[in-house]
């Protein structure tokens, strides 16, 4: 039996990933950071008396939580219903508009209302992954700051003078007790800034934008032409998304563009899956209703989904939204690579 088990209370914020999750819990005298890897949990404790600082910075966070994935699944199911019975045009329109609005809201929140948060003690600086939205961070600080202040007392008014010859947080490379380099020493040249505009990233954004526009433009065109426009741009988008991920892995490209590539690839994959399912169900429904002499088989129609303008429209919407987000990221310019370890995002 476990002796004297500590009772924890959950603090605001929870990162619910498909594999990795995170949350912060409150005990009497410390915070417990729980990193969950589905079948395993790792814990870090931060005692109130040891916490030196809580630092946060605005940063884009394109996190797809299991909750938002569930909303996406419900939306996809509604789309399937719309496919199966094309008579419900009003329902179809509402579903499409709601879906687009949700995606726009998610991109807006991810870009403009998201943050990173890091907690500092004398020997560690740990990111709190569960705090990635601004409003959650605010609630978290409202609950935690009074407890830390209660344990440590209030900060002195003239703390700036004390800080002149003091370092906060762990020393470089975790070596406790080593002297920091003198502030008068020449600054060490940092690594070169990570690029946002590489030929691959520009091609990726261009393929999203042009693909989105071409899909919309081809809505009224002949199915044969629209099919090749859609498939051609899809192949280009997926290929350049993979290239963007590779460039980020090799340290040549910023993480935000990699995140956009991941989101786009997942969105295209989800769209393809949902539309294939919808097309299959529509064919089965048509066969059942019309009872033709030679029924169609969904498996024999791998490109059947391209017959549906709504499918092509959603693909165009994904491309356009991703392209616009990419333009925003490109306009932010190059950033130093220290964004991975610091909060200067």
């Amino acid at each position, binding site marked *: 039996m*476990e*002796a*004297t*088990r*500590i009772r*924890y209370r*959950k603090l605001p914020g929870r990162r619910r990933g498909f594999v990795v999750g995170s949350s912060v*819990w409150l005990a009497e005298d410390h915070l*417990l950071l*729980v990193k969950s890897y*589905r*079948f*395993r*949990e*790792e*814990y*870090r404790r931060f005692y109130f*008396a*040891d*916490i*030196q*600082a*809580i*630092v*946060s*910075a605005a940063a884009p966070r394109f996190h797809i939580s299991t909750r938002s994935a569930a909303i996406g699944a419900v939306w996809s199911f509604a789309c399937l219903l719309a496919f199966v019975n094309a008579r419900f045009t009003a329902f179809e329109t509402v579903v499409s508009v709601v879906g687009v609005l949700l995606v726009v809201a998610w991109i807006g929140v991810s870009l403009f209302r998201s943050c990173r948060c890091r907690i*500092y*003690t*004398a020997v560690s*600086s740990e990111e709190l992954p569960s705090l990635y939205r601004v409003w959650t961070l605010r609630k978290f*600080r409202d609950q935690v*700051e009074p407890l*830390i*202040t209660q344990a*440590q*007392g*209030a*900060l*002195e008014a003239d*703390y*700036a003078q*004390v*800080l002149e010859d*003091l*370092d*906060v*947080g*762990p*020393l*470089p490379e975790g070596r*406790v*007790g080593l002297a*920091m380099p003198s502030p008068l020493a020449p600054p060490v040249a940092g690594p070169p800034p990570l690029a946002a505009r590489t030929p691959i990233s520009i091609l990726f954004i261009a393929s999203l934008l042009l693909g989105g526009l071409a899909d919309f433009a081809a809505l009224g065109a002949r199915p044969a032409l629209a099919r090749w426009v859609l498939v051609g741009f899809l192949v280009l988008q997926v290929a350049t998304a993979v290239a963007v991920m590779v460039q980020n892995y090799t340290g040549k490209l910023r993480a935000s563009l990699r995140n956009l590539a991941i989101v786009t690839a997942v969105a295209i994959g989800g769209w393809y899956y949902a539309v294939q399912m919808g097309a299959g169900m529509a064919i089965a429904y048509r066969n059942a209703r019309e009872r033709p002499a030679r029924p169609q088989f969904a498996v024999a129609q791998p490109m059947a989904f391209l017959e549906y303008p709504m499918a092509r429209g959603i693909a165009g919407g994904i491309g356009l939204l991703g392209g616009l987000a990419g333009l925003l990221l490109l306009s932010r310019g190059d*950033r*130093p690579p220290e964004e991975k*370890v*610091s*909060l*200067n*995002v």
Partner: protein
Amino acid sequence: MPLSKWELLRGHDASCPSCGAENDVRLFPAALARAAAPQAETALEGEAACFDHPAKRAVAVCRHCGRFVCGLCAIELGDGVSCPTCLVKPRSKQPQANSAEARMLYDTWTLTIPFALLIFWPLTVLSAPAALALTVMKWKQPLSLVRRNRWRFVAGLGLSLAQGGLWLWLGWYLVAKARAGA
């Protein structure tokens, strides 16, 4: 990495002078406390000395092994003083309630195995007994530090029992049918 001066000296809203990024810094008095290096005083003749540093004066006793420790070796934990040796060496096989750094979530395993394998349902003939055995073997293992009940164990147990029961029924049915045919 330590916090940079520009973050520390400008109050809550600190703008990076090089990239212009806005950071919100909440500083606490612990940041101002100088890291006091642990002191170990030299032991005088006749005074108790540290087990690992015979020349240093003992200031505490390790609660686990009872050895004397100096100021350098005394490590204060929530439940008393430990020496460095006892800190890294597990004292017993009994899991420590409050110092775990990681835990395997066996209750999640026992729920996920029978549930996930429903997709490839023929495999449940193997997964059901496996999940049952895991539940029985790991029932007493500590759960997550922040979970308080064993509903996953119970749900996994129920699901595996149901799957096992269905397989038994299927086996019995097939045998009975074969006998009837013969």
